[in-house]
């Protein structure tokens, strides 16, 4: 797996935006390097304005990097053909209000060079996948937030891309809807599709992602496999069953023996949320 071309390769990405007043530049992304292997699910987390969306836009060639490079499956993001293998769901997507759901997916399919029978089949398949078959002939202008998010997923997946980039896929979606989106990501992972997502909902990131990166003020402050990141190295966890309070007390004293069954011992996990807060608070102090 490691020798194959990575799905995403971002090297020392820097992106400055010109602010209208004073010649000061706003550095939205500051030296981010990322590598996402094919088939991985990668989650980028960070507070508002930390540069998540900007990183994704640079990867898609929507903004030109100030420095550094981005590549999708080895093709530079500034080349149009790098987008053949990628599907993108922007944050709070809106689509042409005048089109129906089916027309929307068809339009994006045409943009990917699909046509005829193949296209029609894909449109039906995608609408079924995101559960919008009943709404296929309704104007997208009348769709709810969750429906827009789902039609966005359908258009992102229309050409069967090998990489899916999701910018806050569950923002504004109810718990049932976000569960569906999570299940969809699982399904895609099974098919070998690489997913690169960013989200504020840390629990969900924790549920679906193989690897996560924490970005803060444009810098990637922590990155690694989720399991490694959230294990606490200098602690040991003892999980007891049928332990009375006294027993617990004694165990606390003895710390080893007792009549209880030792179910599991190993490294306890912190939550991704705690890690997130710790990392972003720490970064906040030293900058």
């Amino acid at each position, binding site marked *: 797996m490691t020798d194959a071309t990575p799905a995403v390769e971002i090297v020392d990405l820097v992106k400055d935006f010109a602010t209208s007043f004073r010649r000061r530049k706003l550095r939205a992304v500051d030296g981010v390097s990322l590598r996402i292997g094919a088939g991985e699910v990668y989650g980028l987390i960070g507070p508002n304005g930390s540069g998540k969306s900007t990183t994704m836009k640079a990867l898609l060639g929507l903004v030109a990097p100030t420095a550094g490079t981005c590549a999708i499956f080895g093709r530079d993001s500034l080349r*149009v053909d790098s987008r053949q293998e990628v599907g993108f769901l922007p944050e709070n*997507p809106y689509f042409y209000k*005048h089109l129906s759901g089916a027309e929307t997916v068809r339009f994006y399919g045409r943009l990917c060079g699909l046509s005829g029978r193949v296209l029609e089949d894909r449109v039906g398949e995608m609408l079924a996948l995101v559960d919008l078959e009943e709404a296929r002939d309704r104007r997208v202008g009348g769709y709810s937030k969750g429906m827009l998010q789902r039609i966005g997923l359908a258009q992102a997946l229309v050409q069967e891309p090998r990489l899916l980039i999701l910018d806050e896929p569950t923002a504004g979606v109810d718990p049932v809807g976000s569960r569906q989106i999570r299940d969809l990501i699982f399904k895609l992972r099974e098919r070998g599709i690489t997913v690169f997502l960013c989200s504020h909902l840390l629990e969900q990131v924790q549920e679906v992602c193989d690897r996560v990166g924490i970005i803060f003020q444009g810098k990637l402050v922590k990155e690694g496999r989720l399991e490694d990141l959230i294990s606490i190295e200098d602690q040991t966890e003892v999980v007891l069953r049928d332990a009375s309070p006294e027993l617990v007390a004694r165990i606390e004293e003895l710390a080893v023996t007792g009549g209880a069954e030792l179910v599991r011992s190993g490294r306890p996990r912190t939550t991704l949320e705690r890690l997130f807060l710790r990392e972003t608070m720490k970064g906040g102090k030293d900058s």
Partner: protein
Amino acid sequence: MRRPGKQGIGSHGGRVLAITMNTFTQLVRMKVFYFLVVFALIMLGSNFFDLPQHGLPETFGFSVLRAVMSWSLGAMTLFSMVLAIVATALLLPRDVEDRTLYTILAKPVPRIDYLAGKLFGVLLLLAVSLAVMDLVMLGVLQLRMSLFMGQVEAMEAAGQAAEKVARMRAELLANGPDWSLQGAVVAVFLRAAIMAVLALFISTFSTSTLFTSIVSFLVYFLGYFQADMREAFLRTTGEGLGVLERGGALLLTLVLPDFQMFNVIDAVIEGAAMPLAVLGKLAVVAGFHLLFYLLASWYVFAGKEV
């Protein structure tokens, strides 16, 4: 293992067509075609305006036919101009605002394809609406024609001089719809097409629809003085015509369309013929401006951060 990812130049056409048709549907579903109803009403209304004039009855039919042409071509010019500028000025900012542009450019769509698609969508809308207006105009002219022919026949039956009747008949036919009139409609289209591409170019760097529209209308008026400006440019420098002046005049010709060329439309209303060569020249000039400004738009848009 999957579908071949490689897509040749051949698929450019497919993508441009997809965006063209999408733009066309978008404009149609924005109910822009309602103005055609207004046009039809104007045409119907114009029927009530020909109260018998004190002119000679022989020239009566003649002037009414010319008036209908003048009304229709005037209305066509107005509608096509407003449509070309406002519709184009609306499209880009709207895609940026709704962030539909992200989803489009995140697909393998070269930016030139996107711009060309938008432009062709507006041109298609212009062509369809002008064709409909043309049909309405021809219908009204035909109706008028047959009414006047009926009157002439009545005169004939009433024992008017055969010579006079024949002359009137010939005059009516000479002032009826002909190929020059169709040429004038094509010229109206070409002029609107130039305005559409200008508005597209302006909207690639402008920040609002209003700004784009105002600047476009301004350029339209300036375009009527292009020939004079160029002449003034060349005359002030007199004998020693330097490279700079020549270059300036050339640049002016390239950048600013000469809308005075389209005065042939008015000539057609007056009854002049429009030679095919003139129409051909207009088409070449319009084609040049379309290409020039499409490439200029591309140049600006390619570096744009969306």
